[in-house]
């Protein structure tokens, strides 16, 4: 464990791009945690006197059509977007990995059921399915997280199933069982931990994608509703002003979204290089 941490630190420092992504991640998390406190204005307070002002010293990101400070809105929205992404990916990771691991380990009916469910989800274009789920269950943050988690399930289930299948017959599993561990324990404490590293790569890449998904949903008005600040909603609100040239309302939240997703993707690529340098693209 210590050796792999040491190795990870070595590779992170070796590769400046990954280091940069890591630093960016820390920054994003800090903004998410401290958002309301570091925002210069209250994101919800309207001030129609100063509406539609371009970026200035007083308002770094300008103001929107209701006079709200864009910088504050973008900063505060970080927390919500991050929560949704982490929540969705966390949920689908836990459930998907558990389901996939059981399917790979026990085979038979477990395998068949998990595979059929996965296939049913993957029969849909994923964003369309997310739309349908949120439309059916109602607009709430929880449903957005649930929908995003559901469409991500098959990736984790498949990956876990494959990794577990590969390791199922390996020596240390036999050893664990021989020394008295039940099948479940062998699975949980021996097989799954070894399958972790490649799945971590998937998690990082998925975080970016989950964020895009959630923002897309709120852009079209599903899930999170205004005036809650969320990057997708902010871009949607700014969309109508692009045609009249007020670019800053949509640009800054869009950029924030891009940067966050980019950061997760870089991190995922960097992790992939650590885990398996052969698969470097």
């Amino acid at each position, binding site marked *: 464990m210590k050796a792999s941490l040491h190795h990870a630190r070595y590779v992170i420092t070796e590769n400046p791009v990954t280091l940069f992504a890591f630093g960016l991640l820390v920054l994003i998390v800090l903004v998410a945690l401290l958002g309301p406190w570091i925002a210069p204005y209250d994101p919800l307070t309207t001030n129609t006197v100063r509406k539609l002002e371009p970026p200035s010293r007083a308002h770094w990101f300008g103001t929107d059509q209701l006079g709200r400070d864009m910088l504050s809105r973008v900063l505060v929205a970080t927390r919500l977007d991050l929560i949704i992404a982490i929540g969705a990916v966390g949920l689908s990771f836990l459930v998907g990995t558990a389901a996939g691991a059981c399917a790979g380990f026990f085979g038979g009916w477990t395998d068949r059921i998990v595979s*059929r469910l996965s*296939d*049913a989800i993957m*029969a*849909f*274009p*994923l*964003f*369309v*399915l*997310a*739309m*349908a*789920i949120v*439309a*059916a*269950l*109602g607009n709430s943050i929880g449903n957005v997280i649930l929908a995003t988690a559901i469409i991500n399930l098959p990736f984790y289930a498949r990956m876990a199933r494959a990794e577990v299948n590969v390791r199922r017959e390996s020596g240390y599993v036999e050893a664990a069982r021989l020394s008295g561990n039940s099948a479940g324990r062998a699975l949980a404490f021996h097989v799954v931990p070894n399958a972790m590293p490649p799945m971590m790569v998937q998690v990082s890449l998925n975080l*970016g994608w989950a964020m*895009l998904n959630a*923002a*897309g949903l709120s*852009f*079209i*008005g*599903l899930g999170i509703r205004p005036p809650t600040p969320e990057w*997708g909603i902010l*871009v*949607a609100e*700014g*969309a109508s002003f*692009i*045609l009249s*040239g007020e*670019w800053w309302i*949509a*640009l800054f939240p*869009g950029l924030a*979204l*891009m940067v966050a*997703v*980019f950061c997760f*993707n*870089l991190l995922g*690529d960097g992790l992939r290089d650590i885990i398996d340098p052969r698969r470097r*693209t």
Partner: protein
Amino acid sequence: MRGSLFRLVGKRFAAALPALVAVVVVTFLLMRAMPGDPAAYFAGLSATKEAIEEIRKKLGLDRSLPEQFVFYIRDLARGDLGQSVTTGQPVTTEIATRLPASLELTLFALVLALAVALPLGVLAATRPGSWVDHLSRVLTTTGVSLPTFFTGLLLIYVFYYLLGWAPAPLGRLDSVWSPPARATGFYVIDSLLAGDPALAWACAKQLVLPAITMALFVMAPIARMTRASMLGALGSDFIRTARASGLTRATVLYRYAFRNAMLPVVTTLGMVFSFMLGANVLVEKVFAWPGIGSFALDALVASDYAPVQGFVLTMASIYVLLNLTIDILYGLIDPRVRIEA
């Protein structure tokens, strides 16, 4: 070859059926899972109590769930997707009218993405370390980070507002023109068929920005996969044999390496289509494109649920068909899949 081809199509078709079943069942369950009274949703917000009861009987919502499912299947088999409350038209008619718009956009975007990403990937593989290689790498890393709706807005701002090169993003055709006679539903093709190249050009101009927006996101995985599989193919044993036989560089590259490299790329197309059919909705909203995505969105806002259900069913069915096509295409290229060895 022909016998194995029929067998391949048959097998793939059979494999696609469960997906179709899953789509129908899941959509049914989702629409019934709505909180509140589904009949009220389908009847519309301003419906009277009698209207709601009528809808309830018509959709069989007063029956048990299995019976409802039978009604649902029966309606689907008849092509009855219900009625749109906001437009008063049958959903099937609305979708049939608007589907070509979405398809034209998606097809154009796909062709564009392939036209850029495939050569980029091939060049990046054959000229490692060159500027093409670096460009491809930049595209691959940043492309997947771009939120599609944001990209669309950016493109509109730069190319319409600032530069004035692109037309106003107000739909398929500027209001000064009238759409061509409907043959395929694809405006560009129909204009050409009607012998009106000026109209075709006007329609094409409207297509450019939305198509680029949709294409940008998928260029990245296509280019990445093309480059990776070309590199793999070029380094393989059979390429060495081909070169040792004196085959020209062009033959080796295209007839031998490229065809082999396309196999993983074809598989990637599945993911590409999944994205594109979803991104349709976002792009149609940004560019006011009158396809089935914006139709569903308008209905959603008005709590008009039959169109939403129809939209989900349509998109998912198209996706199943596209995946089937990809599977068959793969079998055409790779004989190992076609022939039981």
